[in-house]
């Protein structure tokens, strides 16, 4: 079974149909995936390798307020909160992970590693032609992929300054699969991946301004 079919199966298995994911149903999907989800994406030429395909909803710098990271995060919190059973939250997380765009093998290099997670995690970041951040991520752990996918669903397409505005504490209300995001543990994927995306965003800003940057 390919990951798209898996995602579909998982979504169909979700017990509370009213709680289906706003992200999984509206965010961009690679065209080769045959998800039975409504997709409204357009492709721009020369997408940055490893980045997610941009969506029309975020194609302009003046994005609707609903697409701002904090609002997306609120929706994500609500989405997982609507699933009372931990196992259903795990399934939703796995669905997110399955919906993550395939990560280029060439990008699985140490410079893209997120340190501190119990699983291997890779993250890439790029600025698109519209000045918005494009993130891609992968992990050898399915659950960790789910975490990454959720984070990317919040951060991808945001302006760099919006990415930097997000604080680890903002994820405090997010309880995914009984794994609260607030714990500042060195094995907390939420925290480590968020910090990693922000460091990469800072580095890109610095590069754009011709300043030296220390990419982490």
């Amino acid at each position, binding site marked *: 079974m390919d990951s798209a079919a898996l995602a579909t199966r998982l979504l169909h298995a979700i017990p509370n149909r009213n709680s289906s994911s706003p992200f999984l149903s509206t965010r961009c999907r690679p065209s080769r995936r045959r998800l039975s989800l409504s997709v409204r994406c357009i492709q721009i030429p020369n997408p940055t390798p490893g980045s997610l395909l941009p969506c029309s909803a975020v194609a302009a710098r003046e994005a609707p307020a609903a697409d701002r990271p904090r609002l997306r995060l609120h929706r994500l919190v609500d989405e997982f909160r609507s699933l009372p059973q*931990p196992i259903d939250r795990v399934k939703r997380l796995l669905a997110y992970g399955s919906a993550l765009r395939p990560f280029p093998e060439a990008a699985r290099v140490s410079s893209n590693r997120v340190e501190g997670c*119990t699983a*291997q995690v890779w993250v890439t970041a790029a600025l698109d032609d519209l000045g918005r951040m494009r993130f891609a991520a992968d992990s*050898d752990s399915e659950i*960790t992929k789910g975490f990454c996918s959720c984070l990317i669903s919040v951060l991808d397409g945001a302006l760099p300054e919006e990415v930097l505005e997000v604080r680890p504490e903002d994820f405090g209300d997010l309880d995914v699969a009984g794994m609260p995001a607030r714990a500042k543990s060195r094995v907390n994927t939420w925290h480590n991946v968020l910090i990693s995306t922000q460091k990469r965003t800072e580095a890109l800003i610095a590069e754009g301004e011709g300043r030296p940057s220390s990419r982490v």
Partner: protein
Amino acid sequence: MMASLCHCPASPPHHSLSKLLSPLSRPRLHPLLSNVLPIFNPSPNRIRAGDQFRRLSSSSRSVALPPEELDSPSLGDLTRPDFPILHQEVNGFNLVYLDNAATSQKPTAVLKVLNKYYESYNSNVHRAIHSLSAEATDAYEQARNKVAAFINASKHKEIVFTRNATEAINLVAYSWGLSNLRSGDEILLTIAEHHSAIVPWQLVAQKTGASLKFVGLTKEEVPDIEQLKELLSVKTKIVVIHHVSNMLGSVLPIEDIVGWAHSVGAKVLVDACQSVPHMVVDVQKLDPDFLVASSHKMCGPTGMGFLYGKSELLSAMPPFLGGGEMIADVFQDYSTFAEPPSRFEAGTPAIGEAIGLGAAIDYLTGIGMQRIHDYEKELANYLYHSLLSIPNVHIYGPAPSETVHRAALCSFNVENIHPTDIATILDKQHGVAIRSGHHCAQPLHRSLGISASARASLYYYNTKKEIDVFIRALKDTIDFFTSFQ
């Protein structure tokens, strides 16, 4: 009688310990403890096991077991009541704690001693003449005596209290290593060492020009002793080696290794973090130059570990950290230093934690380390064979046999499922706590061709029933992920 066996100042230990004492598990009286532990006065009457358990069960809980069950309680069954933390639900399930190689749980006896210290005689040690300080100093030094007796050190001054085993290794690396290593010297380790036994020596090697040599694994996935012998040479200045592997569960013949190392003039530092809590460790028999262990892995508090060092070596070593209490005299431009162990205990030490470690040693000694070891061997075999019965599970380390003893832990992977995913579902859906990751042994994982593994590690308060729960939960977890593949 039994209560007086575990002496702690102003704090009688947890009395339920007495239920575990048997003629087979009486603590050996160490010369250093002659002023600490009263002489054990066993009943001259032979006690049948059933009688023993009847007496045990009535000591604190007055539970009357039916005759047919009198022989059945395992050491795990008997000791679990002493660990409050084990009797809770996690994520809606009875907790099954199988992460003991990372840290152990603490019995009530230790918790009470800690509480008593802070409630009754908390004070700084070796400084003041007032009564509280004298009492704290006495308890602190008695804890040192207990550690010395526990590993059969001949002198209490051979025990240095540290924050943990990592700090103890750093102490040796920076003090002994910087003073004794030169360019061209070799530090011999195995690929299975914990990061805490590798990194300090890398740092010291960079400063001194010495180099690190690593012993690899055999096809049975144990450190290759033959290769170790071949790598030993006059260039070898120190062998840094674990006693029991925290990932492979294998046990190394330390006594032999020490002999081989000494024959070429090399010192030996033994990382005993996974052996001291689980078996009899006798430094006079094993004869290492240094040995380190950690309190929190042996039912004691965190923030406390110890270094054993032969007194002539410690006496010749310069201080590691400078500060109060490690000096003889301080002048404006120089200082003279105290004798070991004070020389290596700069500043106010972890007093309560040291006393708590002493209480943990009392508790373990009361049970008997040989008894703990025998029970854990039984658990180890049961865990290994139970895990092996699950399809697509690969267990790392040697297969147990008549001659190969494994520690009561198994690191493993399940085909196509990441260990972190397994650990997550075990915890969230079953209340089973195991570890996933590299277990601070990345070089070992790399040599095995993996980046991570899952690890279930047991202690004497675990039971076969808990292993059964874990195995059922693991099967369920595998089914869960397999259904989505």
